[in-house]
């Protein structure tokens, strides 16, 4: 299955707080800061809070947006500049008083983000004044950005509120500050509610949504639809790096760079340790079959890279492409029957469930030895799985889980965040 499709699962909540205790100190601090409106934003990097005394209260927009009062042509209004190293889905260039965000992929888009107070540049693209007062999201994959950048109070609408995992975001939702624009399990966004919420920008995940006719109407009410196809990124850190794309809208590049650098260091450090210390590379199989076809991540995909970085011998690592291979179940069996581990197996939550789907799946060595691990430790009670929210943003945590499974000797005291060994019966 394509990786963008896994975003939710049923289950329970409450793990976030447990988890928070175990995360690195700086991330922890950021999370606290982001715990919702009413908490004073900190840090000199936050342009929104820069200048006259930084106010954020009760979810309202700060009186001072960080607008320039006197515009001098040629002045560089964005001293902190984002540089993109991993992500291939967007790029940014700076032009004094405005910056151009270019989104690549299926729905190429160019946006001029002009520092508020400065004149609009003469460019043939949509122009948005930044920092923006409000935004709406359509996928859980960007939600971690709101907390990391401390802009939760600008969040006015989201597609499926049920699938939001973060406890601090759920608290915000509970106050009624966030409109649900997807309705129950909707593939389509509710344009009328969007118009009512009137976000300055709407981040959408899939090209189907970005190109939907109804969303074009939003232009008329001052909402710009911004494609955010993070799921297309090939590198785990590439997905995280979209934090910088989000930060452009809030002029908080400096803060985003700090957060990203921390996650990057954590991920690369672990990857390096695996490279140095791993004795062997166990073979790994992923995903699962549907109607006789096994949808396997290709060799240059996000999943293949994550597994390779975690010290796995991913069995399809030589298959070209960044997407998904549609393989005959027989071919998967022939290659992977002896695989040591079966990680991220479709959506299943117990060995019994796997057996009931297709008895042939019990023939895999990883099934027989009980070496099947699924990322379902952090489910909320309304169908959300934090793996598709926090996990997308924190590949270092996912990598840690993978390493602890494949190479327990490297991380002997690791407490897994997402991955859980499947038992005969589903968890209670």
């Amino acid at each position, binding site marked *: *299955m*394509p990786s*963008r*499709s*896994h*975003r*939710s*699962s*049923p289950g329970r909540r409450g793990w976030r707080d447990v988890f928070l205790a175990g995360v690195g100190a700086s991330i922890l601090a950021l999370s606290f800061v982001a715990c919702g409106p009413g908490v004073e934003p900190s840090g000199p990097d936050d342009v929104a809070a820069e200048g006259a005394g930084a106010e954020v209260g009760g979810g309202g927009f700060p009186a001072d947006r960080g607008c320039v009062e006197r515009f001098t042509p040629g002045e560089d209004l964005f001293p902190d500049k984002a540089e993109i190293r991993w992500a291939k889905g967007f790029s940014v260039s700076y032009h004094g008083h405005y910056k151009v965000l270019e989104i690549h992929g299926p729905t190429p888009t160019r946006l001029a983000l002009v520092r508020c107070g400065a004149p609009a540049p003469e460019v043939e693209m949509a122009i948005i004044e930044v920092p923006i007062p409000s935004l709406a999201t359509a996928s859980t994959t960007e939600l971690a950005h709101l907390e990391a950048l401390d802009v939760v109070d600008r969040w006015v609408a989201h597609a*499926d509120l*049920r699938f939001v995992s973060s406890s601090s975001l759920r608290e915000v939702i509970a106050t009624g500050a966030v409109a649900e624009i997807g*309705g*129950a*399990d*909707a*593939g*389509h966004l509710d344009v009328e509610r969007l118009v009512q919420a009137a976000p300055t920008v709407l981040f959408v995940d*899939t090209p*189907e949504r970005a190109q939907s006719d109804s969303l074009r109407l939003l232009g008329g009410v001052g909402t710009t639809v911004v494609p955010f196809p993070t799921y297309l990124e090939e590198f785990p850190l590439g997905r995280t790096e979209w934090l910088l794309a989000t930060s452009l809208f809030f002029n908080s590049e400096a803060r985003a760079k700090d957060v990203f650098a921390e996650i990057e260091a954590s991920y690369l450090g672990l990857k390096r340790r695996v490279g140095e210390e791993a004795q062997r590379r166990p073979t790994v199989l992923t995903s699962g*079959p*549907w*109607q*006789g*076809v096994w949808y396997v991540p290709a060799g240059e995909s996000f999943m293949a890279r994550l597994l390779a970085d975690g010290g796995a011998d991913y069995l399809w690592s030589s298959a070209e492409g960044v997407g998904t*291979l*549609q*393989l*005959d*179940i*027989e*071919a*998967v*069996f*022939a*290659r992977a*029957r002896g695989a040591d581990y079966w990680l991220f197996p*479709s*959506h*299943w*939550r117990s060995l019994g*469930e796997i057996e*009931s*789907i*297709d*008895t*042939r799946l019990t*023939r895999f060595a990883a099934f027989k030895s009980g070496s099947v691990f699924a990322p*379902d430790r952090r489910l909320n009670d*309304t*169908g959300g*799985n934090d793996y598709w929210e926090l996990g997308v943003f924190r590949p270092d945590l996912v990598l840690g889980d993978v390493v602890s499974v494949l190479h327990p000797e490297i991380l002997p005291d690791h407490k897994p965040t997402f991955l859980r060994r499947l038992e005969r019966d589903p968890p209670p």
Partner: protein
Amino acid sequence: MRDGWKWLVLLALAGGLFLADLAFGSAPVPLHAILDGLLGRPIEDPAWRTIFSEFRLPKALTAALAGASLAVSGLLMQTLFRNPLAGPYVLGISSGASLGVAIAILAVGSSGVGLVSGLGVTGDAAVVGAAAAGAAVALGLVLLVSRRVSVLTLLILGMLFGYASSAVVTILLHWSRAERIESYVRWTFGSFAGVTWSELVVLAPALLFGLGLAFVAAKPLDALHLGEVQARALGTGVGPLRTLVLVATALLAGGVTAFCGPIGFIGVAVPHLARALFATSEHRRLLPATALCGVSVALAADLVSQLPGSQSVLPLNAVTAILGTPVIAALVLRRRLENAFR
């Protein structure tokens, strides 16, 4: 027997394709291992053994049975409705099954309890059950009214049921997340590879029984082919025959759809292939010919969809139609279609 060589060719073709479907697949298994398996000798390599006995054999048997079943049920419908465009799904069986599956994947999957899963994909067993239930509901409705209305009315009702259920499916799709829509769409692609032995022991008897019913009905079907009024004049009990035909079709088409997805084309096209080959409308010959052609077409489609030599697969429904269309168009053009329905 007339056309003896044609039967031989058909049998040889079906047999050959069956063996080819066993021998060629995505995983390289040497021919001698397949031969050992066929002759009941132990296959030394455990992986080859499993591939042969648990992947290829059930798949080839499913393809053969499903091909015969769809083709025969298509023929039954074409005769019953005296309409060359009729097929196994005119009674709304496929619509009913699709509705059942759509509810299982899209609606139940989203409720957040029970069968649900993160992906919104329910288990294969649940899908089979839902498809069978949907097909049974469609058939029940048809049987309920079939005694009271003409076949033409039945045809229209089946069509209406199809529209109504596809409308409900559309609503479910509209409200569903992309990944669930994807699962549903993939189900509609059709596949023989998802059927395991434990499913085949349920499917095979149902299909064989349905085929048996069809063959029992072969002789009276000739009378029915002339039209219900003429059949009555010839002393054929039209009411019971109609019920028999409907039940057989439901078992055949409903069974295949439940386990393999809605496989199109074979049911409508293969009866024409058989008619063209044998230039007959006599059901005692047409039925076995249709069944054999169905076996061959389904096996050939499965072979191609597995893309031997590569690990990838093509959607079965696309293969049946792309491969079959030119062949059958050519045959039908050579032998005027309408002659068969005069």
